[in-house]
């Protein structure tokens, strides 16, 4: 049993630069961002990046930072890039200390909405605690029947058989269907605006990326039955023939 007491797991957490917390424009920006995808941000874990930030040498400072994030439904869980004196203060405030920054800024910055990289949206980016950021893509080789829902949490979904009318594919990443797509496909379900949908035959009831959607009758009729990819361009769902 002892072997099961400690298990490893990978999580995606957001990293907020500590300096940003002192910027008044940041709170406003953060509030807007959370307002756009409230479910995604609800109780979401946050790591405070202390790189190049002065201060934060007292427990108090970390408790205040935690309080500020809590107002936006976020949960401060730890710090990274902390100096030795910051480490003891953070530990005193009950925060975990993550290894010095080994994560690269993700190419998948959460920029729900505007498409312009604002100070805040550049500051908040999903980063992984370890280097492998996402779980492997979920692969489905059997037909997806009416009434079935498949969710690829935190990753891409690849389906190599037909997706029936009345079936639903949901992925936090991209969705690929190498057959007829007749049901619904919702990519970027947690707000990733970079997610795309690819299918070799578009007959979908509904397609959606990061909450924007098109229903069957809004899909361009000339693209019905074709191989297409669907992306969010300037906040518009755009269907392109392959």
């Amino acid at each position, binding site marked *: 049993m002892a072997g099961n007491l400690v298990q490893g797991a990978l999580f995606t957490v957001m990293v907020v630069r500590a300096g940003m917390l002192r910027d008044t424009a940041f709170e406003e920006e953060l509030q807007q961002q959370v307002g756009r995808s409230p479910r995604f941000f609800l109780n979401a874990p946050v790591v405070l990046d202390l790189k190049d930030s002065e201060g934060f040498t007292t427990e108090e400072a970390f408790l205040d930072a935690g309080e500020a994030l809590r107002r936006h439904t976020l949960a401060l869980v730890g710090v990274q890039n902390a100096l030795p004196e910051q480490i003891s203060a953070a530990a005193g405030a009950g925060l975990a200390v993550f290894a010095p920054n080994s994560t690269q800024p993700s190419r998948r910055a959460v920029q729900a909405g505007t498409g312009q990289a604002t100070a805040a949206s550049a500051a908040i980016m999903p980063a992984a605690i370890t280097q492998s950021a996402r779980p492997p893509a979920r692969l489905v080789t*059997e*037909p*997806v*029947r*009416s*009434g*079935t829902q498949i969710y690829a949490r935190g990753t891409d979904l690849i389906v190599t*058989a*037909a997706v*029936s*009318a*009345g*079936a639903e594919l949901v992925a936090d990443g991209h969705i690929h269907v190498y057959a007829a797509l*007749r049901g619904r496909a919702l990519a970027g379900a947690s707000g990733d605006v970079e997610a795309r949908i690819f299918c070799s035959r578009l007959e979908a009831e509904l397609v959606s990326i990061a909450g924007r959607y098109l229903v069957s009758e809004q899909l361009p009729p000339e693209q019905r039955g074709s191989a297409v990819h669907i992306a969010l361009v300037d906040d518009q769902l755009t269907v392109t023939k392959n």
Partner: protein
Amino acid sequence: MTRPGAARGREDLVAKVVAITSGKGGVGKTTTAAAFAAGLALRGHKTVVIDFDVGLRNLDLVMGCERRVVFDFINVINGDANLNQALIKDKRNDNLYIFPTSQTRDKDALKREGVERVLEELKQQFDFIICDSPAGIEHGAVTALYFADAAIIVTNPEVSSVRDSDRIIGILASRSRRAERNEPPVETNLLLTRYDPARVAKGEMLTVEDVQEILSVPLLGVIPESESVLRASNTGTPVAFDEDSPAGRAYLDAVARFLGEQREMRFVQPERRGFFRVLFGRA
């Protein structure tokens, strides 16, 4: 997968539970269950057909044994009667037995453990156990397919029926006992009923190819829309006993394919009035 007939010793046989299901109502499940059971019996296989449609008992009518029902499936599940008291032997074929259900109870009376015990007992006596499923995807329908080794999906050539069949195929693949135990999947076949080639040609019904494309399961047969089906139901004769009717012959073909034979698909083209027929004015 040709199965040995009933003549062989029972020890080396593995009985097969076959669910007749569709999701949608009124597509011909009970007609198919009766015809299929009759067809298997005609081929020498000892067969029982069970009515899972508790509360809406119909199978006994279609099989023409409604006046001989004393005990039913629910009585046996509850231990109020034994199997042989409830089984009704068909008067036309010695290999065929009917297991009627209760008209006064509802589907909640189908306790899974009880159903399993009864099916295990039936497996000792029969080659094929045909389960006539109720419509829907609720408890009764799921219980009827839960223990299935094979399933026949009855579909009409129209979109709502096809979609409901698709849903049922999904349930078979995920919620049957075989799926839960990670055993080989339920052998699933499609039977297209009430097919009217003339209306298909006019675009009023889906074609065989359309339906197969959507459902992508092997096609066991196409049963043409036929007056003989209604007549058979009303007279309590499984349509497979009527070898003169196209529907009866189509069911016998489907049974043969189910037993592993190759047979050409019939009744999928509209009947054409040939050149000579037109010339000589013959109907």
